[in-house]
C-alpha cells in the first residue's frame, strides 16, 4: 500500500471518529492518526490501549477496522491482509523494513512506542523538532530527502515537515496550528512512552499514605514497648 492510499484511508477513517478531543494527549492521538501514522507505527501499543485515553470501544473498533493487518498468504503465496481489531498492535504502515526504506530515501521511520523515553530530550525534543523546520538558508545545499531543521545538531533531518496549519480540524474547536499540533502530539507520545503513568501515580499516593499511617502506628507501638528499657 502506498503512502497516499494509506493517507486516504486514514482521512476516511477520521470521519468515523466522533471523539470530542479535549486534553493535549487526546488531540495528539488525532495528529498521530491523521499525520504521523502515515509513516510511523507503535508496534507495542494495541488499538485497545487507547481506551485509557478516553476512546470508547466503538471508536477503537472503528479505527482498528480501517487498518489492515498481515494475515498469512493466499493460495498463490501472496500476502493477505485482514481488518485490524482492538487487540492488534498499531503496526508501521510499511509491510517490511525494505519497503519502509524505499519510501523514505533509505531511512526507516522509527517506531514511536517508546520514542519519548529513549530520545535523550524526551517528548520535548520531539516537539522542538516538529517546530524547527525552516526554509533551507541560501548557500546551503542538502542531499535529496534531507530537510532543514534547526533542532538537530547538523541542521537537517530525513523526515519531511509533517505539520501544516489547519491540516486537520479538532472536534473541540482548538485551532489546529502547527505549534498546537506539535504540542499535542508530543504530549500524546509522552503518554504512550509511559504506560499507565496516571494510574501509577494515583495508586502511589494511596500506597504511600497507607505506609505513612503504618509507620506512625508502628512507631507508637515500638516506643511503648521500648519505653520501659530506656
Amino acid at each position, binding site marked *: 500500500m502506498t503512502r497516499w492510499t494509506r493517507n486516504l484511508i486514514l482521512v476516511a477513517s477520521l470521519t468515523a471518529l466522533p471523539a470530542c478531543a479535549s486534553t493535549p494527549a487526546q488531540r495528539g492521538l488525532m495528529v498521530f492518526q491523521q499525520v504521523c501514522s502515515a509513516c510511523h507505527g507503535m508496534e507495542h501499543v*494495541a488499538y485497545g490501549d487507547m481506551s485509557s485515553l478516553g476512546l470508547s470501544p466503538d471508536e477503537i473498533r472503528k479505527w482498528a477496522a480501517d487498518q489492515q493487518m498481515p494475515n498469512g498468504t493466499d493460495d498463490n503465496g501472496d500476502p493477505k491482509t485482514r481488518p485490524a481489531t482492538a487487540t492488534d498492535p498499531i503496526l508501521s504502515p510499511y509491510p517490511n523494513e525494505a519497503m519502509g526504506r524505499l519510501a523514505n530515501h533509505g531511512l526507516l521511520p522509527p517506531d514511536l512506542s517508546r520514542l519519548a523515553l529513549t530520545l535523550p530530550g524526551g517528548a520535548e525534543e520531539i516537539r522542538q523538532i516538529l517546530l524547527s523546520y525552516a526554509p533551507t538558508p541560501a548557500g546551503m545545499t542538502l542531499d535529496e530527502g534531507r530537510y532543514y531543521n534547526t533542532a538537530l545538531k547538523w541542521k537537517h533531518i530525513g523526515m519531511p515537515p509533517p505539520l501544516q496549519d489547519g491540516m486537520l480540524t479538532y472536534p473541540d474547536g482548538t485551532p489546529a496550528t502547527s505549534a498546537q499540533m506539535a504540542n499535542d502530539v508530543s504530549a500524546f507520545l509522552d503518554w504512550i512512552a509511559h504506560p499507565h503513568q496516571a494510574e501509577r501515580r494515583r495508586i502511589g499516593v494511596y500506597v504511600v499514605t497507607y505506609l505513612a499511617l503504618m509507620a506512625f502506628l508502628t512507631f507508637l507501638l515500638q516506643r511503648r514497648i521500648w519505653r520501659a528499657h530506656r
Partner: protein
Amino acid sequence: MTSPLKTPDTDPPDWLERRLPVMSLLRRQYVAFPMPRNLNAFWSFGAFLIVTMAFMIASGLFLAINYTPDITQAFASVEAIDRQIPSGWFIRSLHMGGVTMLFACLYIHIGRSLWYGSYKAPRELLWLTGLGLMLMVMVTAFAGYVLPWGQMSYWGATVILNAVHAIPLIGQPLSELLLGGDTLGNVALHRLFVLHFTMAFAILGVIALHVAALHVVKSNNPSGIDPVSPSQTLPFHPYYTSRDGFALCLFLMVYAGLVFFLPDLLTLADNYVQANPLVTPRDIRPEWYFAPFYAILRAVPSRLGGLLLASGSLAVLFTLPWLDRSALRPATRRPMVRLSLPLAFAAFMVLGVAGMHAPTPAWLLASRVAIAWWFIHFLLVMPLASEREMSS
C-alpha cells in the same frame, strides 16, 4: 502396642507439638530468641533483605507467567507486561525497583558488618554465606537483565560473557556453557532465563543457611562485646519485631516511591530499544549496582588485569576474617580502622560514580586511586591494625 503417642491428645497445639515441634521451634527462634539490647538501625537491613527477596520472588513468578524467552518475542512480551497485562506495570516495577532495593540493602548490610566487625570469630560462616549470597544475587541480576532483550541487555551480556571467556582455564568452557552457540542468541537467552530463576530459588536456600548460622552464633552488636547474661538481652518479640516493623514501613515507603513515582530514575532508557546485534548503543554502561566493578574493568589497562582486580576486590572480602585476627570488633574502638574503613567505603562509592560516567582522564585517575585504597585497606591496614592490637 507402645507408641510415643499413646496419651489421647486432643489439644491441637499439643497434637502438632508431639508430631512436629514447629511451634516451639518458632517460639525459641523468633519469639523468645535473645537479642542484644543495644542494636541500632543498621541491624534492620537484614529484615529489609528478606522482605525484598519475598517481593522479588513473588513478582518474578508473575512476570515469568507472561514472559517469553525467545529472542523474537522477549522484548514484545515485556512490553505487553508493561502495557496490556492487567497490573503488569506494577508487577514489573516491583521487580525492577526491587533489584535496586536489594543491592542497596546488601551493600549497607555488608558495610555494617565491616564497620562493627561482625565477620570475626565466631561469625565467619555467617560472613561467608552472606558474601556467597551477594555473588548469587549478582549472577541472578545479570541473567535477569538479559531477559527483556533490550539494547542494554544484549550488549551488557555480550561484554560480560566475553569477560567470562577471558578468564584463564575455566573461562572458555564456562562462557560456552552459557552461550550454547557462537553468539548471544536464542539458546543463550533460554539458558539465562533458567539460570535466573533457578539461582533465585537457590538464594532462598542459602538465606536459610545464613539465618541458621545467625541463630547459632547470635547477633553481634555496636559494642562488639557479646552479651553474657540474660539480663543483657531482650526477647526478639516484641522488642525487635516492633522496631523492625517500624523500620520496614519507612523502607517500604522508599521502595514505593521508586515503584510509583520514579520508575525511570535508575533504569537505562536504551533498554527500551529492542536488541540490535548490529549497533552498540553510544553510552553503554551497567546498572548502578554493577558500576563499581565496571569502573575497575575500565581503569585497568589490561583485560586480564581488570578482571583479576574486579574479582579480587570481592575475593579480599572472603579472606577478611583471616586477614584481621584481632579480637576487637567495632571500628569505633580501633583508631586505624576508624580512619581507613570510611575511606574504603568512599573508594567504593567513587568507583560507583566513576562507573556511571564517561572514562575521562579525571575519572580514570579517581578510579585508580580508589582501587588502590580498597586493596591497601584490606591487604595492608587490616593485618597491620590487628597485629598492633594483638601485641598490645
